[in-house]
């Protein structure tokens, strides 16, 4: 009887544990049943769902997005509608849920529209950054050499040149349209993510399974798309979920400096800096945007935290 048959029979007689006492990551059939056939993303989702705070934050973010989309329907007033006879009204006065500002505009309506501004710019800027970062990062990571050293020296420079300075300069050049601000934030932000993509590619590139794929004869592009990218999705998802609130902060920050979206389009930063003049008498003018701003940031952060816990492969290594 060949040793092959011995092995086969051994396995049939005593599955998994009796024959294999190895310390492999999964332990034979038992755990196999529990962890049903699932992709990496699927497993991450299962872990993510267990985190109540993160799941709640995800739902909250979903609600925010819906509110932002439906702002024109939900808002009782237009965000430009001034009523100079009803300036600086306190909350709940005269049909204004959150009162009015110094020009007599409804604060609640402006809040909803500023949410719209913030989310639109946040998502769009991050999309710009992500597209550029993916392209450059994958290329630099896979090809190495000149492309890589160029990226690295560029990021080294950017390291000493904070992104907000860069955004401010870009806004100064391009003006204060929504499109310009999206570009200004996106362009200033892609470098970080390109580095992350590159680092991921470098890490995965050194895994033996990529070597194995090469030894089979798989081409470079196919390896990048089929093997490297799917395994970099988790970390990318995590950074994206942190980068979106980062972009929102950048947008509000620009508005705070008077370089945000041109008025009368409302923005949290603009509402805060405008309301600050009247803070002693009318604290609600900054309290309202402050509260919604904070809640939005926290929801994104807790969601990102949950994603990190769910997708961070280094945590798995320790387990």
């Amino acid at each position, binding site marked *: 009887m060949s040793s092959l048959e011995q092995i086969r029979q051994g396995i049939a007689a005593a599955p998994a544990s009796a024959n294999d006492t190895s310390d492999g990551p999964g332990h034979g059939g038992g755990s196999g049943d529990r962890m049903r056939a699932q992709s990496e993303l699927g497993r991450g989702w299962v872990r993510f769902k267990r985190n109540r705070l993160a799941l709640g934050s995800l739902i909250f973010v979903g609600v925010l997005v819906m509110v932002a989309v439906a702002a024109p329907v939900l808002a009782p007033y237009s965000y430009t509608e001034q009523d100079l006879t009803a300036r600086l009204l306190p909350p709940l006065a005269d049909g204004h849920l959150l009162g009015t500002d110094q020009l007599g505009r409804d604060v609640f309506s402006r809040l909803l529209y500023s949410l719209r501004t913030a989310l639109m710019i946040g998502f769009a800027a991050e999309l710009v950054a992500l597209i550029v970062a993916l392209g450059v990062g994958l290329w630099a990571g896979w090809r190495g050499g000149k492309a890589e050293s160029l990226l690295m020296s560029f990021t080294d420079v950017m390291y000493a040149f904070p992104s907000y300075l860069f955004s401010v300069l870009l806004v100064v050049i391009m003006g204060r349209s929504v499109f310009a601000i999206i570009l200004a934030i996106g362009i200033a932000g892609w470098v970080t993510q390109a580095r992350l993509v590159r680092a991921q590619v470098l890490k995965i590139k050194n895994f033996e399974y990529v070597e194995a794929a090469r030894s089979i004869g798989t081409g470079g592009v196919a390896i990048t798309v089929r093997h490297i990218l799917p395994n970099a999705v988790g970390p990318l998802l995590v950074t994206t979920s942190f980068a979106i609130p980062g972009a929102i902060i950048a947008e509000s920050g620009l508005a705070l400096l008077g370089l945000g979206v041109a008025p009368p389009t409302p923005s949290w930063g603009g509402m805060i800096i405008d309301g600050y003049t009247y803070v002693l008498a009318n604290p609600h003018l900054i309290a309202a945007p402050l509260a919604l701003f904070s809640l939005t940031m*926290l929801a994104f952060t807790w969601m990102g935290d949950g994603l990190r816990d769910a997708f961070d492969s280094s945590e798995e290594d320790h387990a």
Partner: protein
Amino acid sequence: MLRFMARRLVRLTLSLVVVSIITFGLLQLVPGSFSDLADVGSTALGDQASSDDGGLAGRYGDEVPAWEQYATFMRGLATWDMGPTYKYPQTTVEELIGEAFPVSLSLAVPATLLTLLVAIPIGMLAAVKKDKLADYGSIFTLTTIQALPGYLFALVLVLIFSVGFGWLPVRGWNGPEYMIIPVVALAVQPTAMLARYVRSSMLEALRDEYVVAALAKGGTKRVVLVRHVLRNSLIPLVTVVGPIFAALATGTVFVEVLLGIPGLGRLFTLAARTRDMPLLMGTTLFFALVLMVMNLIVDLAYGLLDPRIRHQQRADSRWRRPKRPRMLRGSPVLGNNTDHDGGGGGSPAAGSPDAATSMGARG
């Protein structure tokens, strides 16, 4: 050591030149002329009446070619004589920076100290009490705090202590009581960041085998904690100082503008809004210079503190930038000052003397 210093200084200068070229180049793209003093910030108009007089007093004018303007400015920067600004022709750029920088510094230094004093004990406590209530509680609080930019804390503090209790002034810069809100607001976010980093760094050190070895030699928990864990986890802490300083620099811009403090950040914003080229170039490069020098100092300090890097000198005169802490990745506030270079192999552990050969030593 000297070779390393020299190399780093050359790199620093080069980076500064690149930053200046980028800044200057971008400013060349601005529609209208530099001498156009319209405030783009306060008015929404992109189409301000462009006055092409250009005959402002000073060394820059529209008739001078761009490269010459650049050369003149850079010469001025090198000799610390950048000439008058557009907005205030009677004052020079270096005078304005010279006035504003001490103000910013008097916010940044106390904020840094506050950060260190609060963050390290909290981080240590959380690490030692891992998986206990104190740990979960502090981590949750720190994560929450870290998510919010410093100017939001400034607002909260204003709402509570200025509006609510009336103890502190709302805005301005007229004495020590005006420092409290900005310093605390600036320190909050870096404190959260640092505390989380201290915690994870200590937990990492606690997992190391030499901790078990020291316990097995008969050390008390406290002695092992102080002699081995704390020491080793505080060394990489130096690396966070760079990002923290960057966060502070960022923070000062917003806090200064919000609270009306005449610091460097407000000066930069003013310059940006008025497109005051000399002032904008001056403040931008000054910011960049401060950050680069901080990073240089951090890298030097790291090299001196970690013997693995200190003794690597002979074999490899090029120090690697120490790996940036994990904790900092993905912080929404920090922007591009966090380093995602996870795969670069620049970690201190990988920086062992034979790391250079390990690539060839696979067999």
